[in-house]
Structures are given as structure tokens and as C-alpha cells.
């Protein structure tokens, strides 16, 4: 298994899509902070963005490079990070990279060279999962780092804030993003088609599934289905620690990761290589 992981890591760090998606992620972060700076400097724009979003049960559909509600309060790392992550831009980049990385092994036919190796069909999913775990860590850590550096340079009222709270938020978002990627790995194994997987993955990150669960929620059963969606948890996770919300988010992420991981392994075992 370690050899398979080593092989995939070798490929990951040599693939263009790895660097391109990370580059785009970090550029978006810098652009967000820079735009933020422009808003702070412009009173008319500041008034416009000072209108806060009303809290509601509905979920925003779409991808945003989000601004946050501001006044003269301190801008913490957690808040700025939350705005970026909640906008799903990191998730989208991770999904794009995952799909390119996984589907290319099928589409190029390279998998024929290695699939008959002992245990490869099981190790395929595990190895890709580990590679994506490393990618996500680099992506999210890099995002936090770039937010920190660019905010320090550009924003006057930026502070680090409560590190413990930020760590809890970071860890929970990491798990949620990881679960989304595991779902995408499953989709790739199921369809073995880059276009279908890409379309489905981007729709997922955009919150399209929330439209369906929103309809179910209107049935007024004693359960809010939207609360158990990965994208809902990703977008609405508060930066200040809340036991119920954080526990639910972590549980949903872990369950989703395990289910999609096992399903991927089963699919790989059963399918013929085309």
C-alpha cells in the first residue's frame, strides 16, 4: 500500500493541475483581501456592504468570494478565513483537482499497468484519499497563511484572534472538505467520466443539493435535512465554537467519508478496467 501511495504522491507533485488549482486558490484569497481593502477605503461601498445578510434557514446557492459584515470592529483571521471557505471556492478547486487527478488514471489507461498488482483495487481509493488529504492540508493552510500575510500588509484592523477557536474551525472545515472530496472520488469511480464528475462536483459545491433538501424541509417533518448536508455545514459553520453545530458537522463529515470511501473500494473491486 505504501508503494501505491508513494507512486500517487510522485504523480501529484508533478501534475500541473496541482499547482494551478493551488495558485488559483491563493490568488482568489489575495484578490478578496485586496477588494476588501478597497471597500474599507471607499465610504459609499462600505455602506453598501454594511447591510448584513439576514440569518435564515435557507442556504446560499452559488460560489462567492465573500465579503463579511464589517464596521470598525477588528477583523480576525477566523472571520476572513470563514468568508473564503464558506464561499466554497476552496472546495471547488479541491474538487476540480481531485477529478482531474483521479479520472486521468482511467482516461490515460495508466491504470492497466498497475491494477493487477496485489491489492491495488483497494489501495487505489486509499491512496487517492491520502493524496487528497495532503492537498487539502496544503490548500487550507496556504489559504490561512495568505490571508494572514495579505491582511497584515493591507488591513489596518486585522488581528489573529482566538487561536484555539480558529484551530477548531479549521479542523472542522478540513473534515467537511475532505468528506466532499471523498464523495467526488466515489463519483469518479462510479462514472469514470471526467465531464460528468466535474459537472456533478461543481453543482454539489454550489449547493444544488440544498435546493432539494430545502423542499424536503418544507414538509415540516421533525428533521431539518439541510443540516446534514456537507455544503450546508461548510457554508454555515460559525467561527465561534458551538458544541452542537460542530459535533453535527464532524459527525456528518466522518460518516460521509467512511460511506463514500467504502463504496469507492467496492466499486473498484467489481468493475472491469476499460
Amino acid at each position, binding site marked *: 500500500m505504501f*508503494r*501505491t501511495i*508513494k*507512486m500517487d504522491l*510522485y*504523480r501529484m507533485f*508533478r*501534475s*500541473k493541475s496541482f499547482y494551478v488549482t493551488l495558485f488559483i486558490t491563493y490568488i482568489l484569497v489575495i484578490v478578496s483581501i485586496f477588494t476588501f481593502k478597497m471597500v474599507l477605503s471607499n465610504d459609499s461601498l462600505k455602506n453598501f456592504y454594511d447591510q448584513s445578510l439576514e440569518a435564515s434557514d435557507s442556504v446560499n446557492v452559488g460560489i462567492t468570494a465573500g465579503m463579511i459584515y464589517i464596521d470598525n470592529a477588528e477583523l480576525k483571521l477566523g472571520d476572513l478565513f470563514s468568508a473564503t471557505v464558506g464561499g466554497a471556492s476552496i472546495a471547488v478547486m479541491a474538487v476540480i483537482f481531485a477529478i482531474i487527478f483521479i479520472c*486521468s488514471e482511467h482516461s*490515460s*489507461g*495508466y*491504470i*492497466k*499497468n*498497475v*491494477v*493487477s*498488482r*496485489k*491489492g*491495488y483495487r483497494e489501495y487505489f481509493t486509499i491512496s487517492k484519499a491520502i493524496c487528497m488529504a495532503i492537498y487539502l492540508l496544503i490548500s487550507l493552510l496556504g489559504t490561512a497563511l495568505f490571508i494572514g500575510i495579505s491582511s497584515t500588509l493591507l488591513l489596518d484592523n486585522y488581528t489573529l484572534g482566538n487561536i484555539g477557536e480558529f484551530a477548531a474551525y479549521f479542523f472542522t472545515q478540513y473534515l467537511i472538505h475532505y468528506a466532499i472530496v471523498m464523495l467526488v472520488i466515489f463519483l469518479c469511480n462510479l462514472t469514470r467520466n471526467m465531464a460528468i464528475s466535474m459537472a456533478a462536483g461543481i453543482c454539489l459545491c454550489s449547493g444544488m443539493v440544498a435546493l432539494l433538501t430545502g423542499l424536503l424541509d418544507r414538509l415540516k417533518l421533525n428533521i431539518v435535512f439541510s443540516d446534514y448536508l456537507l455544503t450546508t455545514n461548510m457554508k454555515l459553520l460559525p467561527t465561534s465554537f458551538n458544541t452542537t453545530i460542530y459535533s453535527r458537522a464532524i459527525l456528518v463529515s466522518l460518516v460521509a467519508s467512511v460511506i463514500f470511501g467504502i463504496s469507492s473500494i467496492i466499486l473498484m473491486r*467489481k468493475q*472491469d*478496467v476499460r
Partner: protein
Amino acid sequence: MNDILLRSSNLTKKYKNHAAVNNVSLTIKRGDIYGFIGRNGAGKTTFLKMISGLAKQTSGNIELFGTDCNKQKELFSRIGVLIEAPGLFPNMTAFENLKMKCISLGIKEDNYIHEIIELVGLKGVDKKKTKNYSLGMRQRLGIGMALVGEPDLLVLDEPINGLDPQGIVEVRDTIQRLNKERNMTIIISSHILEELSKIATRYGIIDKGILLQELTNEELMESCSERIQITLSNAKEACTILEEKLGITDYKVIDPTTIYVFEQLNNPALINMTLCNNGVLVSSFHVANDDLETYFIHLTGGASYV
């Protein structure tokens, strides 16, 4: 050591109601260069995928190295595979593609990769991305990928497709060298029957998913060699006459009404006259000389193309 490297028993693969491979039972012995012949859609690639572990059979059994593959799936690891188009990452170089496979097998020395590159004739272009390779270069690299890890059995599906004449000669030499020096057992499927006839030691001929015939090179040569083909009323009587009157002993009785004569080929009229004068009715008499392609076409029912 078990002489039989691969044995398939009633191997079948069905896609919905269509049997792509239908009860194929064959054996491949250690040291064979096994030529797998069939037209497009005959089931060659499907069969090769099953024995390589890329596809699961619907029914039937595969024994590799004397052991049932269902019980020891790691046996597939001892097979080097080039099925259909070579599986290469286009944005990686030949060296990197080979390196990845070496990593998966635990091979650490870069010298080993350079040896493979040299063996398949890609020295000097190994740092080029494979998307910039010609078809022939990709085929060679595909063979190189199959060779990584010193497999005991090499499965090559149409390995000389797209190669120029020099490339074909080089691949042929490589295959023969691997077979001779490393005692590697090789299964090759090909449409270029003339090339196959130069290297294969045994043949399996498949059509519409069914294995029609297995024969050795000697048997094929015998079937294809120049001969006088005679259709007559009584083969047994004709043989006696040929022996007594003309001293012909090199002949073969195909069925009660057909014989092949392999000597005195420059004197067919004398043979015909002798048989007729001794009361044997001859209904058909001609000199035949099949090549592998003609033999294959006759066997598969007169296809207009291979």
C-alpha cells in the same frame, strides 16, 4: 517446475446477452511465444484482459502458474501487460511514467529505468513528454512498461500496431531475445499474421468468442506447406497405389476422401494419371500452398479481411 504457465477452462465473458468470449479453454506452456489470432471483435482483447486481471470472467477458471487465480489474486502481479493502447500519462515523460511503475513495485534504481528505455529503443527521447511521442514510440514505451518488474508472463495486445518496418523488426528481435535469454513466456495478439508467423511457437485461433483451433508452429507449417491436395473416392486405396506404384510415402490422410501429398510436387500429372489408371476416381486435384493468413481465413469461414 510446472510446465503449464496459464490454463483457462471454459472461460466465458458475457456482456448482457452477448458472449464476447465463449468457453475458451487453452494452455500456454512455459517458454512459449503464443500467437493469438482473430479478427476484429473476435474476443482476443477480452480474453487477454481476463487473464491479466483487468476484467472478471462471467464463468470459467483461470490457472496461473499452476494455481487458481480466484484463490491467489496476487498471481496477476507476475504478468506484464500491454492491452490496447499503451497506458501512459501524456504530460509526463517516458522516464517519469516508468519511474511511477517502478515505485509501485519497489524498484529504486534509476539505472533499471535507463536499461528498459534502451531495450525498447527510446534512448535520447526519454525526457520528452509522451503526448509528443509518435504512435510507434508510445507502443515501444508501452512494451517497456510491461517489462518493468521482470514479469514471468508478458501479454501483448497488438504490440506492433503503428510501428514502421524497422520498429517491427526491433520489437520482433526484442521479443525473441526476451524469450530466449530470459525464458519469458509471451502471448501476442496481432493482425499482422505474417509477422506473427515469424516468431510464434504456438497459435490459438479465435473467432466470435470461440477458440477454433490450437496448433504448434510445426503443425501450422505442415498445414500450410506446399502440397498436392487430392479429393478422391477412396483415400485408403489411393495411398496404397501411391506407395506401390510411385514410392510416395510422404502423405497425409485428411479424411476418407481427401489426401495431401508432400513429395513429387513437380510431377502432379503422373500422380493423377496413376490414380486414374488404377481405378481411383479423382474429383479434385491441385497444388496448394497456404500462408498463415489464408489458413486463418479458411478456418474462420472465408472472411474477406483479417
